């Protein structure tokens, strides 16, 4: 299983993904610059990603907690998600995301 991640310089990487891992953990484990400050507690919005249009409806919709945290992110779009809230499963093989700008 793989996930395609475009970093903030525009470079796309294909990362091997493990079932049961959170997308945030996969991106962080491969060393991409995702801050994930709270460690996955949905408390900081520093793992903000944009999900490719054809994948948006395949993910479970964000819960209220995730929407509230996205209030602390910058340039939030309709396809914005927090990577810590996406649990990887075989159905997500090929998921494509872009790292959102990071607040300084």
């Amino acid at each position: 299983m793989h996930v395609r991640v475009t970093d903030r310089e525009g470079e796309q990487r294909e990362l091997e993904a493990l079932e049961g891992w959170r997308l945030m953990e996969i991106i962080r484990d491969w060393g991409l610059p995702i801050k994930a400050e709270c460690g996955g507690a949905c408390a900081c919005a520093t793992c903000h990603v944009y999900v490719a249009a054809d994948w948006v409806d395949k993910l479970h919709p964000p819960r209220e907690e995730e929407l509230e945290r996205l209030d602390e992110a910058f340039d939030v779009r309709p396809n914005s998600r927090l990577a810590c809230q996406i649990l990887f499963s075989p159905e997500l093989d090929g998921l494509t995301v872009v790292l959102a700008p990071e607040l300084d």
Partner: protein
Amino acid sequence: MTNDNIITTDVVIVGAGPCGLFAVFELGLLDIKAHLVDILPKVGGQCAELYPEKPIYDIPGFPIVTGQGLVDNLVEQIRPFGPTFHLNQMIEALEPIGTADAPRFRVTTDAGTVFETKTVIVAAGGGSFQPKKPPIPGIEAYEGNSVFYAVRKMEAFRGRDILIVGGGDSALDWTLNLQPIARRVTLMHRRDDFRAAPHSVEQMRALVASGQMDMKLGQVTGLKGEGTALQAAICRDSDGQTFEIACNTLLPFFGLTMKLGPIADWGLNLNENLIPADTEKFETSTPGIFAIGDINTYPGKLKLILSGFHEAALAAQKVHRYVYPDKRLTFQYTTSSTSLQKKLGVA
């Protein structure tokens, strides 16, 4: 500053999160009193600030405990040792004034508190919490004159045209506080749901309904102005439409993020914003300065609260040698030592 204003102590702990708090306990058992400094207005660090209601499952002896619950218990546990807290301030400068064998440091906070201490324990987690700055192109040019991430003196905002961005308590509180003294306040949030206290949201909506302030849905994407003087914010709504809001002051409230801050200037060896420490006593490259918890690094490091507790216990043993160089340290258990139990107030 005269010597009367300097606090002389054995140890200053930088950070009042779980590891800093537990260090007070381990030091207290060894008759070492601690002063703690934290940039936040309350103790508890990440646990209290980021996830107070979240359950934690890997604290020994607690099958489940919330972040705030753990902090409350730690505060209760260290109560016998009477630590002194210096909250709402950040250590700006740390100057060695002793020798390697007998270290001493002069430590100064941004609130003007000065310590002379034999040892320093850095328990700063991911660094100090500081306001998040949105990556709006050119925003730096306006910072300090037109763009502010915190309100220090309300009077400085009298008569201004203020745009406040955010949907949490900070945004709503400052909207309500500044509305009476500003020329005009506009609150902007990306959606029509606010996560601030319901009463604050009601008050804000009443002010909007009576025409005393404005509320807009959207996000700031750019700024217009001359030099350091802001003239307007360029904004975008959820449909992608661009519009401008005339303002000479922008207050973005996007929450807090952690930064290493002035610790980077203390002369310690750093490894990607972490402080290398040995695994025997968790001392840094500078004798007398220790690093425990998430801010340190060493082979095999696990970023767990559990690890920080262990590190606090070992650091305290070495601190004892600096504080009481002529005193023999005898290892004792709290279950059996009357001496320790007396210190804890239970014997």
